[in-house]
């Protein structure tokens, strides 16, 4: 959250000094977005570590996360290398988009693990679910941008609204839900039981 606030201040500074259409703003926007996405990916990995802490699988989770991050980077690089001559700048955008989708899949797997392991911590459950909603919205928005390039500006504006969801829901989870609160995760599964 601190990194997000710092990046927002930096973006505002560059926006006011160089303008919205300047190359400086575009570069700063996408490079900082990639850093924030990697930060979110690390936050997701720490959620994995919380869920699997009793199994002592923290090192395995860290190793797997690093491997997946490198794999996603290599995949993004291969796509960019074939499709564009502006490799570095295109790579940054591509990696950011792919990491959102990988993050979504990983959050889905984490949610399945929570249901399977009968994790009961309300705060942890709400943090994972709100992260899932956030990443789904982001991945859907990126996909729509690629499907309808003419409506690009609309989908970019939507991202700003979607971006509010995670800080609000996480703030609620940390401030309003007591750490000792518990719930039965089986009650939350979508299929009627």
């Amino acid at each position, binding site marked *: 959250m601190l990194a997000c606030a710092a990046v927002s201040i930096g973006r505002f500074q560059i926006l006011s000094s160089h303008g919205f259409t300047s190359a400086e703003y575009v570069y700063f926007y996408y490079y900082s977005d990639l850093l924030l996405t990697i930060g979110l990916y690390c936050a997701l990995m720490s959620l994995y570590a919380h869920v699997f802490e009793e199994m002592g699988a923290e090192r395995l989770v860290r190793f797997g996360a690093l491997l997946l991050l490198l794999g996603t980077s290599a995949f993004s690089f291969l796509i960019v290398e074939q499709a564009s001559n502006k490799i570095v700048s295109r790579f940054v955008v591509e990696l950011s988009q792919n990491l959102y989708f990988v993050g979504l899949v990983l959050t889905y797997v984490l949610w399945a693990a929570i249901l399977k392991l009968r994790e009961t911590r309300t705060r942890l459950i709400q943090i994972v*679910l709100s992260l899932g909603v956030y990443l789904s919205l982001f991945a859907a928005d990126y996909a729509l941008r690629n499907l309808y390039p003419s409506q690009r500006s609309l989908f970019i504006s939507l991202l700003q609204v979607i971006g509010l969801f995670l800080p609000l829901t996480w703030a609620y989870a940390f401030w309003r839900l007591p750490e000792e609160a518990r719930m039965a995760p089986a009650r939350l599964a979508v299929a009627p039981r």
Partner: protein
Amino acid sequence: MMASVIFVVSLVCLLQFFVSYCRSVIAASAKQPLSQEVQDVTGLKNSASREDFARVTQLLHLCPERPEDRNRVHAIGAYFSLLGVLRATVARFIPSLREWTSLEQGQCAYFVAVALDRRIAFSRELLAQQMDA
């Protein structure tokens, strides 16, 4: 092609996470008892039915908003509407699903009643602060 696949997968995941998130929000308030005052105003005790939702929501809008619960009330309102769509379409042919949507919508109504209880307490606090000042 790839973008379409990502879009469909994202939508399916979004639906799954959104429903589970709403259920977690509802579950967190399901155990809270209603104050006698709210029980008298709404006519609810330990549970609510789907028919109560509109009435309790109207009562909720009469109270000053608490910034903390605004988003959750909107999310549960959207979840209630989603269940309504499900009930009017697929659930018409599946009785067990129809029963489940009714139960869920009743829990949404109970959540709104708990939110109403909190807003009344919040209004009281505000009034007390103004009186002190």
